[in-house]
Structure formats: C-alpha cells, structure tokens
C-alpha cells in the first residue's frame, strides 16, 4: 500500500508544469510590416475618481493622463487613458503596479489583469494599414499621434491600441482572442500597401 502511494507521488512530481504563454514565439513578416508577440508584462485595470488621481499617480510613479486618448510613460511603466475614470497601467520593467496601489488609501479600484491580456507589436511602414484592415479609427499621425492610445475594435474583438512611434503600434487583446487577433493582423499585413 505504502509502496503504491510512493509510486503515485513520483508520477505526479514528474508532470510538466511548464508555463506556456499564448502565441509564444509567433511572428510574421510581410514586406512592410513585422508582427510579433511581446513578452509578458504586469498590468492593472485602474478605476478611480478625480480626487484620487494625484495620490495614485504618486504611488505608481507615473502621472495618470486626464486627456482623452493620451498616455504617459515613465521607467518602463505606461498609463493609458481608457475612459474618464479608467486607466490601463502596463509595467514592462517587472515591477508590480498592483502592489504600489495597495498602499493608497484614496478611493480606487485596481485589478490585476496581467494574464488576461496579450500584447502584440505591429511595426514597419505598413503598420497603420495593417491595423486598419480591421480597425475603423483614423490612424494618421494627425489624428493618432505618437503616444496616443484608445480602446477600440479589430475585426470582431475589442483591443487597446497604442502608438509607440510613427510606425510602431502595440495591440493589447484578451488572451482568448489572441489567436484570432494575431491571425487577423497577419492577413492584414499581406494586404498592407505602403
């Protein structure tokens, strides 16, 4: 009896617990566009009234933007304006923004969504055209300048789009939609004329 139990425990211990991120290693290149999956990052969904913004900005180390469609970045941490009292905070430096918010006593709601989202980088001269294959927003530099960000749609899914450079976008989508989004962007990149 004891022997059998030992044997069973050994089997369990050797089971693979390797973490497999969605879309790991997937990348696509078209003549004018490169689409690649970005490494995992820490993210929070932050909701807070006007009165709490200053305290949260101080705790996070990045000033939460108050103007629609804008973002603020500092030391690997980006705060994206999503709505009048809603932000998406992405930390790519490995620090946990959720822990930073925990010490703030001002009214707010911070929810960790690091594993909910997958980020895809779309870069190259045809990046805007690729995203416009499924996103109806005006992505010209006048309407969507560098640093602009917005929740919007791509095909049938909701995404958060931000522009890091004139020809570089970051697409944040829900993990379960990531296969669809990546495939959609790959198809779009084949049509992207420059």
């Amino acid at each position, binding site marked *: 009896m004891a022997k059998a139990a030992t044997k069973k425990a050994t089997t369990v211990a050797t089971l693979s617990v390797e973490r497999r991120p969605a879309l790991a290693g997937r990348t696509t290149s078209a003549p004018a566009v490169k689409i690649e999956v970005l490494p995992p990052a820490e993210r929070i969904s932050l909701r807070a009234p006007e009165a709490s913004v200053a305290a949260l900005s101080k705790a996070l180390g990045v000033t939460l933007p108050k103007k*629609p469609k804008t973002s603020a970045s500092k030391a690997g941490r980006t705060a994206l304006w999503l*709505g009048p009292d*809603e932000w998406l905070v992405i930390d790519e430096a490995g620090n946990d923004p959720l822990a930073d918010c925990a010490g703030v006593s001002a009214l707010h709601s911070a929810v960790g969504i690091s594993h909910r989202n997958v980020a895809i980088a779309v870069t190259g001269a045809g990046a805007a055209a690729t995203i416009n294959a499924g996103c*109806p927003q005006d992505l010209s530099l006048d309407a969507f300048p560098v640093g602009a960000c*917005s929740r919007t*749609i791509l095909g049938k899914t*909701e995404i958060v789009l931000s522009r890091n450079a004139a020809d570089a976008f970051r697409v944040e989508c829900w993990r379960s939609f990531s296969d669809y989004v990546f495939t959609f962007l790959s198809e779009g990149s084949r049509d992207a004329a420059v």
Partner: protein
Amino acid sequence: MLLIRCPYCEEERPELEFRNAGEAHIARSANIAGESDDDFEKFFFIRSNPKGIIHERWRHMHGCARFFNAVRDTVTDKFIMTYKAGEPKPSKLPEISNEVVAK
C-alpha cells in the same frame, strides 16, 4: 460608416465602437412598487418612436465605455448632437449642415 461624436472622448469615432441603448430621458419612479400597472406599462414598455428627432442613449462600448445621450433624426439617420449623460435635454438644436455631422 457614421461618425459619432463621443462627448467624453471629445472626438468623432466610427459607429462600430458604439451601441444604442434605447430612448433617453425616461425617469424611473422613486416609488416603483407603488406605481399602478398602467403607469408601469408606460414607463417600461411604451416608447415614443417618433419620425424625425429622437433623444437616445448611446454607449461608447468599445471606447471609453461611457453612456451618453444623442439627438438623432430617424429619417435621415443623422446625429444632430451628442451630450453627456445627466445633462438636460438641449433646448435648442444646432443647424444641421452636410459638412458637420454629430458635432
């Protein structure tokens, strides 16, 4: 595609980001349990459904996710103006021109 001005995003955005949310300015009674069946029916089911100008609630679902109100012409399908939720019905509507929609 229609461009709808979101009063919270302060710009015109494509209609695919929006959802209609029914007629606006329908006040729920403070004492809903005390309503007569007729009054409740009026509040709950009966909508004006006009031909022409209608005040509607819209939601910028795939944007800032906020509800707002819009004045729309049901004949031409043009948005005449939009304003934030909670604001009173606009007493005067702007002139509709062909260049400017949903301002």
